[in-house]
């Protein structure tokens, strides 16, 4: 029998259109807010209007008499069972982790903190009844600026004070590196507070049947959430099922165990009915964890020729009012990335985590790494200006040469692969670097009011989170493995169960491609299941660009086991020794006798029938595998941005943007390119548009999408992408791509703006670089009114 099976590996690298799309483009979706259950009730939360206040009285009785209201509860009503929202990353032994009840009982510490909940027949009735709850507050002073929060006499967020922790790291002799250094540059950069704004607002539905609860949630982490509900809220793990149905984006914001999820479970149990809650955007902007919010003091010491001697970083990181799931660990994910792709003799890092009366911060796309990359890439430009050399030239003098890999950095990470020269050369060519530099010079020479600037970001990141032993050494509360299962169905079709939980990444497509190659079955014959702890009982979920670099490898391990089992059965069918069989493109054949062969589908059917299995062989080809990576992965790239900056209006236009990324081997180039695009957009948004702003009383001013400027298509440029490929040291050679664009693009854009204005004497502008800020920077540099 002749078949025309494609060669093994045929799927890898193919721009397969996505399996996910059919339902998403026709509206046949299953968002959590779509769920309707019999008798389901709706919850609405009363939230604190004060940044900081003592609660002296909460009276929910008024709400109870409102039409359609079934129940209303204050924090005190759940005091015995609501516990404290977990922080899984106690980064130091003496870290202060304050109690964080899902509903405040005695004191509120940020605007939006939940105080009471109404349960009603529909969402309108629930919302209406909130007005009938009486709360007495004694306002307390807000704490809003981490630069002064540790001063003597500063008001306290928590009894224990405003310092949560101090974490330090040092490598090499930093004093020696700075002592007598010919050049030292010091800067302080602001990482403004960002609001993630996934387009799908959070939503939860909880339903109890007997002693079992099912929680549907718009979450990135159904498995972690199940564990948390059990470990911290006393619901036996075997009785908890968590489902992440279609989830409309996350970017880290849905990597959380939220008050509303916990309360849905507790309230549902109390009222004996399914309950649902869907946030409004304004509610979400206030109460979905925020990102970034750091002050970064960074010092770099170098020789006259630009060789870096040492780097010293001192961060103040705004924790917000409480420590949520990984709040204190976010700056640590950046701690190892300040040295980036550069060689140096010494490095020291200190981070102080500080409480304020604001929404807690936590992971947001890149989590720690965009902050680090911004600071190092910005100060490399400043160092270049100080020494008087081309910023790309300075980078090249310091970066790890491609023949030096694997290379252990001063921060102790071992970069397994990369080629900064190749990525940069490709980016320069796509960008027309030399041509743009010439145009820039011409414009400067003629004093053009619209200046051209070129911004460089030769970034790397650590992702593929993460080797469990490294997480352990950093005091993280869990491991970093991922799991996968393969179910070989009797008809030769395949069910793939993955522990990672997609919310836009395209796992159903990419995972099908990997399995199609590994098992030699058609792409169309594979279904990928995820996001339901009943279907996929083990997993560490999706964040930190880990799905492919960890979950993808688990998949390969599971496929190996299927093939190994199938080989024994195929050998029996072919009356050969398993050692004499080779497996290729879905077919087991006897070496030297290609006519004697069985497809994996034939083996699957024979296994199901189980009529003639070899002695001691179970009638199943199914397999489970777990993969724990040995190392992080280190995507890198060179991003180049050209901006036109109007010195008269302060308006910044991105004229061109080139991104050359090395994300290792690519499973689906179309999906990878999409991730790069979206990542770049989010980084540009930080550079130019977005900032979560609190007023002097601690009220969030940017509660709507009219105030918090998520950019539209009209605000963003077109991107040119290119790819260089060096293989990561794992079996697929993959590195991860989810966060790369965001990490790279923010400094590229700001460097471009500063590069345009440096001849006018501007060397920094605080993000977001709004027209007003740019204009003021130009004015003050001109000696004009600031």
């Amino acid at each position, binding site marked *: 029998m002749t078949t025309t099976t494609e060669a093994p590996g045929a799927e890898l690298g193919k721009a397969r*259109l*996505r399996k*996910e*799309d*059919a*339902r*998403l*483009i*026709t*509206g*046949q*979706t299953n*968002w959590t*807010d*779509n769920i*309707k259950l019999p008798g389901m009730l709706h919850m609405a939360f009363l939230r604190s209007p004060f940044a900081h206040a003592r609660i002296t009285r909460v009276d929910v009785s008024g709400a109870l008499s409102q039409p359609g209201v079934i129940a209303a509860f204050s924090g005190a009503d759940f005091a015995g069972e609501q516990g404290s929202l977990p922080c899984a990353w106690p980064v130091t032994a003496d870290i202060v982790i304050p109690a964080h009840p899902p509903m405040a009982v005695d004191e509120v510490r940020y605007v939006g903190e939940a105080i009471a909940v109404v349960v009603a027949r529909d969402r*309108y009735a629930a919302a209406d009844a909130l007005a009938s709850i009486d709360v007495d507050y004694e306002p307390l002073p807000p704490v809003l600026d981490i630069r002064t929060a540790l001063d003597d006499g500063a008001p306290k967020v928590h009894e224990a004070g405003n310092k949560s922790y101090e974490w330090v790291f040092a490598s090499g002799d930093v004093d020696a590196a700075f002592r007598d250094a010919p050049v030292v540059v010091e800067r302080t950069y602001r990482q403004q507070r960002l609001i993630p*704004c*996934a*387009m*799908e*607002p959070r939503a939860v539905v909880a339903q109890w049947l007997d002693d079992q609860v099912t929680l549907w949630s718009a979450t990135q982490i159904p498995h972690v959430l199940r564990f948390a509900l059990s470990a911290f809220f006393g619901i036996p793990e075997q009785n908890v099922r968590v489902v992440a149905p*279609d*989830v*409309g*984006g996350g*970017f880290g914001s849905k990597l959380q165990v939220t008050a509303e999820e916990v309360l849905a479970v507790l309230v549902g149990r109390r009222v004996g009915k399914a309950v649902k809650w869907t946030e*409004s*955007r*304004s509610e979400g902007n206030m109460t979905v964890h925020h990102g970034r919010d750091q002050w970064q003091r960074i010092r770099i010491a170098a020789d006259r020729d630009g060789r870096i001697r040492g780097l010293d970083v001192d961060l103040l990181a705004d924790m917000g009012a409480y420590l949520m799931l990984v709040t204190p660990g976010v700056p640590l994910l950046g701690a190892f990335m300040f040295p980036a792709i550069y060689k140096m003799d010494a490095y020291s890092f200190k981070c102080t985590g500080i409480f304020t009366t604001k929404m807690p911060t936590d992971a947001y796309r890149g989590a720690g790494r965009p902050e680090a990359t911004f600071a190092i890439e910005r100060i490399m430009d400043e160092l270049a200006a100080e020494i008087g050399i081309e910023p790309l030239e300075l980078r090249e003098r310091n970066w790890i040469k491609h023949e030096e890999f694997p290379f252990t950095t001063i921060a102790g990470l071992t970069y397994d692969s990369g080629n900064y020269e190749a990525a940069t050369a490709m980016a320069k060519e796509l960008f027309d670097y030399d041509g743009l530099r010439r145009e820039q010079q011409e414009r400067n020479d003629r004093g053009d009011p619209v200046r051209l600037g070129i911004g460089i970001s030769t970034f790397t990141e650590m992702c593929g989170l993460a080797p469990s032993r490294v997480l352990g050494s950093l005091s993280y509360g869990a491991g970093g493995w991922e799991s996968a299962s393969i179910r070989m169905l009797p008809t030769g079709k395949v069910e793939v169960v993955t522990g990672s939980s997609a*919310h*836009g*990444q*395209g796992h159903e497509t990419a995972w099908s491609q990997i399995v199609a190659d590994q098992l030699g079955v058609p792409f169309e014959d594979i279904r990928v299941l995820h996001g339901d702890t009943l279907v996929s009982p083990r997993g560490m979920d999706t964040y930190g660009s880990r799905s492919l670099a960890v979950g993808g490898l688990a998949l390969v391990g599971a496929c190996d086991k299927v093939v190994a089992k199938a080989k024994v059965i195929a050998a029996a069918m072919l009356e050969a020794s398993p050692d004499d069989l080779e497996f290729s493109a879905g077919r087991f054949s006897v070496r030297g006798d290609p006519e004697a062969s069985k497809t994996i589908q034939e083996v699957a059917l024979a296994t199901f029938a189980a009529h003639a299995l070899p002695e001691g062989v179970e009638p199943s080809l199914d397999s489970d595998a777990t993969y724990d990576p040995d190392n992080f992965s280190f995507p890198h790239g060179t991003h180049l941005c050209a901006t036109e900056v109007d010195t008269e209006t302060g308006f910044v236009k991105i004229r061109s943007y080139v991104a050359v990324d090395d994300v290792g081997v690519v499973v689906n180039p*179309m*999906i990878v*390119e*999409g*991730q790069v*695009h*979206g*990542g*770049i*957009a*989010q980084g540009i948004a930080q550079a130019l548009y977005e900032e979560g702003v609190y007023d002097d009383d601690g009220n969030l001013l940017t509660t*709507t*999408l*009219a105030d918090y400027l*998520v950019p*539209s*298509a*009209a605000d*963003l440029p*077109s*991107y040119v992408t290119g790819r260089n490929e060096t293989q990561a040291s794992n079996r697929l050679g993959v590195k991860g791509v989810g966060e790369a*664009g965001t990490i790279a693009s923010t400094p590229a854009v700001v460097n471009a703006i500063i590069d345009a204005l440096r001849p006018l004497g501007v060397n920094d502008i605080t993000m977001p670089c709004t027209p007003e800020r740019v204009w003021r920077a130009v004015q003050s540099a001109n000696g004009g009114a600031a």
Partner: protein
Amino acid sequence: MTHITVMVDGVNYADHVEPRLLLVHYLREVVGKTGTPIGCDTSNCGACIVLMDGVSVKSCSVLAVQADGSDITTIEGLADGELHPVQRAFHEEHALQCGYCTPGMIMAAADLLRDNPHPTDEEIREGLEGNLCRCTGYENIVRAVRRAAEAGVAP
């Protein structure tokens, strides 16, 4: 309660609704057209866009009673046996990731192309200014609309 009759995706519905009920809640919760999602509460995101008598509207900023007597097309009714050219182009150009903005984006793009069958990239970007996407960076959305335009959107 007010009595309204509305045609939604070719089917007639008659319902008693609260005067304050938003059209998007009527569509999602009364009619069951959950294909149309909600992304904000200030008419900024465009996730909820439907066609009302052939013209795109943000269904979160229209009351159900204002839709009385009108003909609504949602994302669920756009395909007519086969995918609408804009739907197909979104798939082929990978113009969606999580897909949450997609229904509104597709409806807005369909309306844009009806007005302007051959838009420039800049016109596409301006035309979709009222639709926010957090995932794609818009590059592939622009490509998809261009592709749909090239394919010729049915009148």
